[in-house]
């Protein structure tokens, strides 16, 4: 058996072992043992993925007792790329969870679900045919639902979230089932290679494309089917949120790439336009919601919608450009999409783990109640800071390189001759720019309000990060990946080339990235060296000045001479985003409520002012509520049909039988 095949089998075996260990180990050792084996599952996945990317192949068949046949696994380079991403995130999160898991998160069920979830997720991109893909997909969905439910006993919103998640994830499954069914009927077989030989120009291909992309978009959290994300992420334990956000939603992106690059590679222009449009809307909507929310994990969840939107936008650009025969920029767009996947995995994993650490150390998830955590949780602050830089796409982090590649392909994709492209490209540039700008604000807010200034609550004041020794190294490793992908993106160029099947992505200088298809290159190390050299004279002058007059600590910050200085006078996350919320009033529709209580003596004197602001998800409010209400009403109406009388039920059956017979006769 080849090394790849061995790796695939090892993941399955290790997952089973981990589940058994989690079930049987004594509670005291459960987290450690199950965590180590789960990490091994992730690590094996990552190594297998690397092997696949390095060029080796391997196929295994896992017998099942289902009539559909065996599960066939044969990862393509594209699948290998996603295996690396999912495996690495899984391993880091599992190590983190050893220290983090406590209470319900350390229960038997939770620890047994995690390795199953990881293995299923890592094997989804390895599936060689539609049936295996769907089976693994469903396993991943079930295991993740069980993980979201971890905390269901203590928090009502967890049950609510799990319900939403289950409903949408099943919707996704149904859409995929239908989509694959259309393709399989056309191709006469379930193998991906067989499906890949279909003609993408046919109507059925377009139907399948729409169904499949809709299904994958649901998993990926694209607007308007993103509503499970901001509910499930805050509900799940943080390491699970990290895996779901950094790796699982990527399976939606993988699916879209699978359809667009492998199964139906040369589609018409409107496919690209469709992806681009939904990507653009998701990117802007996601980051807009993220920028005004003050629940840290909800913020990160919306930022995931934003990033997945950018990935879809990149993919859509690639398809659109390919359909009009613009090869170089299209290849860079695919590369940008893959770079976005890798960078988002790195920084979102870091951010969720750090958010978990904050929750663990201070008990707070509301940014409005945090503050001053930098001094109390230095490692968390460092990791979150690096992750935030990545999410804000600032040099020299992973996010920056990915967004740079995307913008390069957009700029060089300009084709005035084709008006569709000519209109789509500047709109996309504007969308990416607005997204980048808002992401900057969002993460300055998240970092600045949580980690700087003074604590806004007792929980934040008493925050600490001792204990749980595995959390810190996990966060640091993840943060290091953010920097590494940003500093030496050239090293990932080879992987991206193989995975996307694209040309013109190479290495330049030390480990800089070159997009020769669009004639652009950038070496982040050289940029950092330049910055360091320029910093030398500045630091020299600072030192000289400091020698003459050293820095002096004073007791109070300047508060206009005020005598009362309370931490409540600081800006909060809500007030920080207030100007933005006002600018985008029409899109966000916040509900504001100001209540002024006057003193009893005079109505000119104010006793207290209460301000309340509610920001609901507009999409959810407008499009889901009516559906849910309708379902409720239909349900009520249906109750009249079943009144418990056996005669009536038999009557229904009889009527149905007659109806069928009549239909057949016709």
């Amino acid at each position, binding site marked *: 058996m080849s090394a790849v095949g061995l790796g695939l089998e090892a993941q399955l075996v290790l997952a089973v072992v981990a589940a058994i260990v989690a079930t049987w180990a004594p509670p005291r050792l459960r987290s450690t043992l199950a965590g180590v084996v789960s990490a091994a599952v992730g690590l094996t996945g990552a190594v297998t993925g690397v092997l696949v990317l390095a060029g080796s192949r391997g196929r295994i068949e896992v017998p099942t007792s289902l009539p559909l046949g065996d599960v066939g696994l044969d990862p393509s380079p594209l699948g290998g790329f996603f295996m690396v991403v999912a495996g690495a995130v899984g391993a880091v999160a599992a190590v983190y969870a050893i220290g983090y898991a406590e209470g319900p998160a350390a229960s038997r069920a939770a620890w047994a679900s995690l390795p199953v979830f990881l293995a299923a997720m890592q094997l989804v991109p390895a599936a060689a045919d539609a049936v295996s893909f769907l089976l693994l997909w469903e396993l991943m969905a079930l295991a993740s639902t069980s993980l979201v439910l971890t905390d269901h006993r203590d928090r009502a919103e967890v049950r609510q979230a799990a319900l939403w998640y289950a409903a949408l994830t099943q919707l996704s499954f149904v859409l995929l089932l239908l989509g694959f069914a259309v393709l399989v009927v056309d191709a006469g077989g379930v193998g991906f290679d067989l499906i890949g030989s279909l003609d993408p120009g046919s109507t059925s291909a377009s139907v399948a494309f729409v169904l499949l992309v809709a299904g994958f978009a649901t998993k990926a959290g694209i607007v308007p089917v993103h509503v499970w994300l901001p509910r499930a992420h805050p509900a799940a334990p943080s390491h699970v949120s990290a895996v779901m956000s950094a790796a699982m939603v990527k399976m939606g992106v993988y699916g879209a790439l699978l359809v667009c690059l492998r199964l139906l590679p040369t589609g018409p222009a409107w496919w690209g336009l469709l992806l681009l449009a939904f990507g653009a809307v998701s990117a802007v909507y996601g980051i807009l919601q993220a920028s005004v929310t003050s629940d840290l994990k909800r913020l990160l969840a919306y930022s995931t919608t934003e990033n997945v939107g950018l990935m879809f936008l990149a993919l859509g650009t690639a398809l659109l450009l390919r359909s009009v025969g613009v090869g170089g920029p299209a290849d860079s767009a695919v590369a940008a999409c893959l770079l976005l996947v890798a960078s988002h995995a790195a920084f979102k994993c870091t951010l969720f783990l750090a958010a978990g650490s904050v929750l663990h150390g201070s008990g707070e998830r509301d940014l409005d109640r945090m503050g001053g955590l930098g001094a109390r949780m230095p490692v968390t602050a460092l990791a979150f800071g690096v992750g935030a830089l990545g999410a804000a796409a600032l040099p020299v982090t992973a996010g920056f390189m990915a967004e740079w590649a995307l913008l390069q392909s957009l700029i060089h994709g300009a084709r005035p001759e084709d*008006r*569709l492209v000519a*209109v789509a490209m*500047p*709109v996309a540039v504007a969308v990416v720019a607005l997204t980048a700008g808002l992401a900057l604000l969002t993460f300055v807010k998240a970092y600045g309000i949580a980690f700087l200034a003074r604590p806004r609550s007792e929980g934040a004041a008493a925050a600490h990060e001792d204990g749980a020794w595995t959390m810190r190294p996990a966060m640091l490793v993840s943060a290091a990946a953010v920097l590494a992908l940003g500093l030496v993106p050239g090293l990932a160029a080879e992987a991206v080339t193989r995975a996307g099947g694209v040309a013109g992505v190479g290495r330049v200088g030390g480990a800089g990235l070159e997009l020769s298809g669009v004639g652009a290159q950038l070496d982040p190390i050289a940029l950092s060296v330049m910055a360091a050299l320029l910093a030398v004279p500045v630091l020299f002058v600072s030192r000289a000045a400091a020698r003459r007059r050293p820095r002096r600590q004073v007791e109070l910050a300047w508060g206009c001479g005020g005598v009362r200085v309370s931490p409540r006078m600081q800006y909060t996350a809500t007030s920080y985003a207030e100007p933005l919320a006002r*600018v985008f009033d*029409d899109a966000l529709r916040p509900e504001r409520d100001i209540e002024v209580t006057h003193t009893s003596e005079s109505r000119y004197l104010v006793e207290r002012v209460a301000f309340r602001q509610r920001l609901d998800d507009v999409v959810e409010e407008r499009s889901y509520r009516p559906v849910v209400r309708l379902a409720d009403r239909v349900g009520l109406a249906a109750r009249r049909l079943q009144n418990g009388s056996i005669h009536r039920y038999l009557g229904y059956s009889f009527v149905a039988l007659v109806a069928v017979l009549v239909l057949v006769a016709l």
Partner: protein
Amino acid sequence: MSDSLYAQLVGLSGGVLLLSAVLIVWRRSISAEVRLLAVQGGALAGLVTVLGVNEGSTELLVVAGLVLTLKVVVLPGLLFRAVARHGASLREETPLINTTTSLIALSLLTMLAFLVSRPLLVLGDDPAIAAVPIGIALVLYGFLVLATRRHAFSQLIGFLVLDNGIGTVAFLTAGGIPLVVELGASLDLLLVVLILQVLTARIRSEFGDADLDDLTELRD
């Protein structure tokens, strides 16, 4: 006239047409909008002149002169007088959608105009044809103003922008609508303006305001 100069002049007048329309949407003060409308009329007259000189057509030059008198002198003059009667500080304070959104909508409408004019490309690669999207964009801008402004004067201005857009498209594609048609249409417009002016003056003297939202109550 050399080809490149011709192309540049067409581009220039097209640019002024478009820019003045953008500024009309941007500004709140109605007297400023009227001034911009005059500038726009001037640009339209300039465009017609350029086309006329290029084709050596006296008829077009005459039309240019008429456009100039009507759209730079007569119409803005009338509007100015009306605005002055209402007090010079007349402003469109609360359009139905705020200015920021209108401006964003403008950029999308521009792109739409550019996109829908794709079939016109078969008419040739004359600079005049390439500039047709500008005319379509003006029509769309005019409609936007017409649909989103509350004040009767702003609506009138939107209507005039729309008319300029139709004129631009017509001149660019057909080398000009026949003189009679243009004259007839312009005279119609003049009539509309006069009637509206009389009406708003009456409404104003009766109700003290010309805000269209308040006018909806007149039904009852």
